[in-house]
């Protein structure tokens, strides 16, 4: 392999590679992301490749295993070009039919097409799918064009052109100024202006500086960083190179959690390939700039996503945050100036340099620019990774992209920003995706998790779930977070188990304020958000739990009872057979009765009953 010594060589290589790829008559893109791999996409890829070899089509058809396409619940996903044909839920046994019918004869296999759950019609092409239509994909668009294990793929779509442009004649000040003008803000949760961070690090004295990529994504239900690093690691590396050039760093680290084995693997392969081409190492592209990246695996602590804890972990110490009275841009990793950015932030940088800050700032709201990747999960019809321009309303995301409620119950709330975020009720769905607007409403952008909840969700129970998570994941260093969150959980458990007292609600509120003001790191400061936001918007549910000892959503087991409606019950006996605790009694053709002493409230009878005769309340 020849090392690229000049930006002209890179362009020449790009043209050669693009031609090579243009020679194929058709292209099959199969998603090989973690989500699709779980639904056997690797077997599909193998079967398709085998079938193509069997039919002597290797020179005509390019089979590409790519990263995540975002629509994970439909996996394995296959897109066939030309024609943009979209097949979902493909199994290895379909390979022969796909090759002989679709590829050779151009016929569409109806069975594999996507059915829109809202309208119920079959959709042929990817662009027509409502889930994709309402999105604005800038970062994710490259996922389906690039095989993450092939640097050639990335170069062929114009990769590393941005660092070539930078090294060919943009000085660090201009790069920083461009990033600052673009209005890019940290995508990891804090929303700190990236340009300001870089300026401070650039101004900090010292020859030794570091850039760090934070890929320690731990929010339940969020996976945009994993997806980006898995699907397009070179984009992140290129972003880090530009950042390193701007602030004057010569070494970088990508800190990935070890629960993301595919992301670790792809990042490692990408770094090795970039080194082989001379894109990492000494004198990159013939310039004076030298830079290299190491991959560090995290042990899976949620708190290590916090910048100072991450740096402590990188240094080999216990991953605990330290006070940030001196910023990490001045004294970070090994007490040297360090720029730490999230995966998505780094991935945005090459586009800003290539297309200019004005292009980037043309999208978004006044204070938040560009696009944001969100992980849409929960009780919606379409779940997956969604990229929208900043300023898009929550309503568009939940109803247009997500397709509305999956269960038939009305949508009640959406939880944004992971465990440290808050729950926003339907009344707030006109809020835009914007750092400040969400924070003002008592939630936060966070890393971009978005969990949709319907009327069957108890908000007190949701707050309890997140507190439980945070109590487990708190590092335990400072008192408000370790003891305070634990006490909040204790109070909320009391409330959900029917021991709640009215004065406990005000105590909970006061305690939440103490934790959010008094904690050491941002993790503790945002830990009470689930409680504060549910108290703010769903206060009546707390009151119902405490004063009436009733759970309106029928979730909290201590506060509900199952009874059989004597008129609706047909006496079929299904519930008697289904009950694992033998709590249902009754004769055939006569109304059954649940013995409340033996009932463990598992809810199996409710799902089994065909006559809706079992009442919860």
């Amino acid at each position, binding site marked *: 392999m020849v090392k690229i010594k000049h930006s002209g060589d890179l362009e020449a290589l790009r043209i050669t590679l693009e031609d090579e790829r243009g020679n194929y008559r058709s292209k099959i893109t199969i998603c090989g992301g973690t989500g699709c791999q779980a639904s056997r996409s690797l077997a599909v890829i193998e079967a398709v490749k085998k079938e193509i070899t069997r039919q002597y089509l290797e020179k005509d058809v390019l089979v590409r295993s790519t990263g995540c396409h975002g629509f994970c619940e439909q996996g394995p996903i296959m897109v066939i070009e030309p024609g943009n044909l979209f097949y979902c839920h493909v199994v290895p046994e379909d390979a022969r039919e796909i090759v002989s019918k679709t590829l050779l004869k151009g016929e569409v296999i109806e069975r594999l097409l996507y059915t829109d759950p809202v309208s119920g019609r079959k959709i042929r092409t990817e662009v027509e799918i409502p889930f994709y239509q309402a999105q604005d994909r800038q970062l994710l668009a490259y996922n389906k064009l690039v095989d993450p294990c092939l640097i050639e793929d990335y170069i062929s779509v114009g990769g590393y052109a941005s660092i070539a442009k930078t090294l060919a004649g943009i000085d660090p000040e201009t790069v920083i100024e461009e990033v600052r003008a673009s209005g890019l803000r940290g995508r990891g949760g804090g929303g700190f202006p990236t340009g300001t961070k870089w300026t401070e690090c650039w101004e900090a004295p010292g020859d030794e500086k570091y850039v760090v990529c934070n890929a320690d994504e731990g929010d339940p239900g969020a996976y945009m960083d994993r997806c980006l690093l898995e699907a397009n690691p070179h984009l992140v590396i290129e972003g880090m190179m530009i950042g390193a050039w701007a602030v004057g760093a010569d070494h970088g680290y990508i800190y990935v959690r070890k629960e993301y084995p595919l992301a670790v693997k792809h990042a490692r392969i990408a770094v090795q390939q970039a080194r082989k081409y001379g894109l990492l190492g000494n004198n990159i592209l013939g310039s004076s700039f030298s830079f290299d990246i190491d991959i560090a695996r995290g042990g899976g602590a949620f708190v290590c996503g916090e910048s100072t804890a991450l740096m402590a972990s990188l240094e080999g110490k216990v991953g605990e945050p330290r006070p940030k*009275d001196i910023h990490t841009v001045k004294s970070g990793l090994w007490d040297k100036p360090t720029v730490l950015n999230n995966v998505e932030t780094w991935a945005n940088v090459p586009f800003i340099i290539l297309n200019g800050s004005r292009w980037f700032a043309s999208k978004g709201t006044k204070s938040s620019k560009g696009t944001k990747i969100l992980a849409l999960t929960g009780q919606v019809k379409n779940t997956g990774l969604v990229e929208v321009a900043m300023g898009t309303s929550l309503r568009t995301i939940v109803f247009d992209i997500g397709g509305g409620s999956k269960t038939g119950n009305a949508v009640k709330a959406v939880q944004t920003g992971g465990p440290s975020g808050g729950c926003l009720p339907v009344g707030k769905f006109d809020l835009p995706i914007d750092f400040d607007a969400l924070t003002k409403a008592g939630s936060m952008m966070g890393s971009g998790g978005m969990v949709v909840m319907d009327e069957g969700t108890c908000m007190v129970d949701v707050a309890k779930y997140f507190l439980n998570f945070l109590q487990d994941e708190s590092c*335990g260093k*400072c008192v408000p977070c370790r*003891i305070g969150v634990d006490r909040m959980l204790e109070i909320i458990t009391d409330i959900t188990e029917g021991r709640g007292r009215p004065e406990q609600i005000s105590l909970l509120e006061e305690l939440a304020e*103490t934790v959010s003001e008094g904690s*050491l790191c941002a993790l503790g400061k945002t830990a009470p958000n689930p409680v504060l936001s549910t108290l703010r918007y769903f206060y009546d549910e707390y009151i119902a739990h405490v004063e009436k000892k009733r759970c309106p959503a029928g979730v909290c087991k201590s506060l509900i009872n199952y009874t059989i409606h004597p008129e609706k019950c047909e006496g079929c006996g299904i519930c008697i057979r289904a009950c694992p605790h033998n709590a249902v009694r009754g004769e055939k053709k006569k109304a059954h009765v649940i013995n409340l002493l033996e009932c463990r409230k598992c809810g199996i009878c409710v799902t089994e009953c065909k006559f809706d005769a079992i009442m919860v309340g």
Partner: protein
Amino acid sequence: MLQYVTLTIDGSRVRATKGTSVLDAAIEYGICIPHLCHVPVLSDTGACRLCIVEHVKNGSSKITTSCTLNVQEGMIINSNTEKVVKLRRNIAELMVAEAPNSRAIQDIAVRCGVKDVRYPFRNNNCIQCGRCVRYCTQFWRANALGFVGRGKERHVDYPLGSRPDFCKNCGSCTLYCPMSVTPCDGPMKRGEERLCGKCESQLSMSVGFPGACVKCELGKGFQCARQA
């Protein structure tokens, strides 16, 4: 040569050596900011959060621990605003509910204005201030103690769970442990924990001077009493 900076703590102009923390500067001038995990010879971690102060900067104030905040020229610190006092009281309440069996913590709770404890007592025998761990690792450089686990499971322990050879039984860890000072009436049994509040009468002397140190052996704060 020592360099000095001038700052304002609770309205009084204070001169402090460059590089010291706000807490040290305040203590030097007799402005007593409650604290627990701070030990003069050791580095500060900001774990107990009792020494929180309001740092007024560019018109907005930020809550931060004074032990980790270094003095800067012209900085304005308020250690006794309503907000800080309330926060500190709540933090002290959490601590005394967690570990009532220590005169030091009972004393801190009373000094921070805790009148009653609204949480069920837990009677743990460690508050995880980390004084022992830091004394062992930083002062003696023995590393015979450390924190193990995270969150609720975090506790002080020997590495690998058993006493290593390099622990010389010097006893510094017990000497610096706030839990080793038992309450005046002797240790409380499980189920009998309460907020002691005996030294509250001495506290009343300081009404009107909320920032001043109470003139009793206990009221001087944990660190003062132990170091004397």
